């Protein structure tokens, strides 16, 4: 009885791991910025949310994603709600993509991710510059989009091991 309970607890913890990583990454802004490489940055939460809302949406609570966005805004210093909107829009995009896809393929996912990423970064950039008069460097956004796109395939292959574990 006890062992079943323990197993249940570990399974629950394992299933919540993506959400926990999401919260750690938004609180920590996991992006290797201290390496001081020119322009280098990538958006790990985007990769994580896109992958898990596409593949494992049942354990990925949208409300928690919304809260993660609020935390990210507070940490980065952006107007409250901007990241939440971006994260929720990713959820909508993946939900739509899931509905229209009959035969999923990693390459399709990857390029759809690029499209969504470009769209979201454009929306972010437009809102911040037009409504909040922020001065931002467009090049930073472009490079961030590129690296996030490039790293997606790496992280996606790592996350697949997690999915394999949860399905087994």
């Amino acid at each position, binding site marked *: 009885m006890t062992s079943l309970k323990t197993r249940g607890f570990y399974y629950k913890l394992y299933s919540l791991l993506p959400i926990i990583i999401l919260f750690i990454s938004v609180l920590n802004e996991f992006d290797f910025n201290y390496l001081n490489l020119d322009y280098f940055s990538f958006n790990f939460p985007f990769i994580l949310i896109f992958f898990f809302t596409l593949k494992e949406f049942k354990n990925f609570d949208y409300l928690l994603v919304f809260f993660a966005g*609020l935390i990210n805004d507070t940490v980065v210093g952006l107007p409250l709600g901007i990241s939440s909107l971006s994260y929720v829009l990713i959820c909508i995009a993946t939900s739509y993509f899931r509905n229209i896809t009959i035969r999923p393929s990693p390459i399709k996912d990857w390029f759809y991710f690029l499209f969504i990423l470009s769209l979201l970064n454009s929306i972010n950039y437009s809102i911040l510059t037009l409504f909040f008069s922020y001065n931002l460097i467009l090049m930073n956004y472009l490079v961030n989009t590129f690296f996030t796109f490039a790293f997606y395939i790496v992280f996606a292959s790592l996350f697949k091991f997690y999915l394999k574990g949860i399905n087994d």
Partner: protein
Amino acid sequence: MATSRDDFIIAIRSAFLKKSTQQKFSLLTLVFLSIFVIILSNLDFKVIRYLKIGINELVYRSSFVVSIPENFLKNTFIEVTDYSTFFKDYKKNRKELSELKSKNISSEITQYENKELKELINDYVSSSDKVLAKIIVDHDSPFLKSIIINKGSKDNIKIGTNIYDQSYLVGRVIEVNYKTSRVLLLSDLNSNVPVTIAPQNVQAIITGSSDNFAQIKYIKAGITDELTEKSIVYTSGTGAIFKSGIPIGKIRINESDKSKKFEVEFYSDFSQLKYVFAEIITKAELIKGNQEEDNSADKTKPIDAKLQILEDELEIIEQSNLKFKEENENLKSEIISLNNEIIRYQTEISQKQEKIKQFDIDKSELEFLRLNLEYSHKCRKSFFNVKGFSVGTEGYKKCILNKGRIND
């Protein structure tokens, strides 16, 4: 055609409205909620403000705790890099320290004078108190350059409070919570600082560049030619956002084929900040103070005030005199030691000259002896050589050095 449109609408509706397993809210609700939060966070209601402060406090603390492992890695990386350049830095620092020590005296005198003049032209005396603050969150985002410090409204931090690294300006506070504050760094694109460029006395505004340097903006055309790489940039105090006279950095000229760019290299490295100073300024108005004094004292107060200023001035002059005396003493002792050294060198030189002279004599004698062995039979007077010279005479010596008689 109609079917595909229907499919699209169904997929969209499903994406927006369908509450999947374990989802408490539909995505459409969350989109509206996000937009509502964006609008609400920009309204300055008291309740929202307090709520925001609460969220900030909680999130900053959590971020600090969560960042501990990454900060550990980051610090290890920086320490390893530091060790590799340790000796080079040490030598450079020693040289700089000796230079700075000599400059410090004149700088202190200028500070005294500056303080006195400021008191004379202002209607208030500002007394500042620097509070040490720890940086709890510094993510060095490529988009926004800001840091979170562990001092807030509880410690009298206000929006606009100047933040320093030692005595160099690093930014100003843009958001204050109860125990934490957000500091906008000078390197942020949204940071604009009115500055004076010395010694040319040029007024300008510098803007962050998202990197560890700033760009000079709003400068009169033609003036830039006067700027050199030795020019120093400090706050001008225009607009009363920053205090005047705070050092920021020095000019760096970036020359390319077609253009010449002027940038400001910050004295402080913002990526290495761990602790900063927040300057809490309290203004005490002189007029009010004088009025209070008037109530308790007689009407001779203006004269007293002038006397006070003169006394202060005297004190400053005395202090500067003392410093000059000290410097003179040091210079005197240095001159004496240098003179001793000169005398020592002079005796050494004369000894060496003597040695050289002796060496030359020895050399010529040796040469004569060598030739004597070879040509003595040609120069010595004998039965067969009647025209020769007696040994030891001047003629004999000349004959030997000429390698025999000239007629032979």
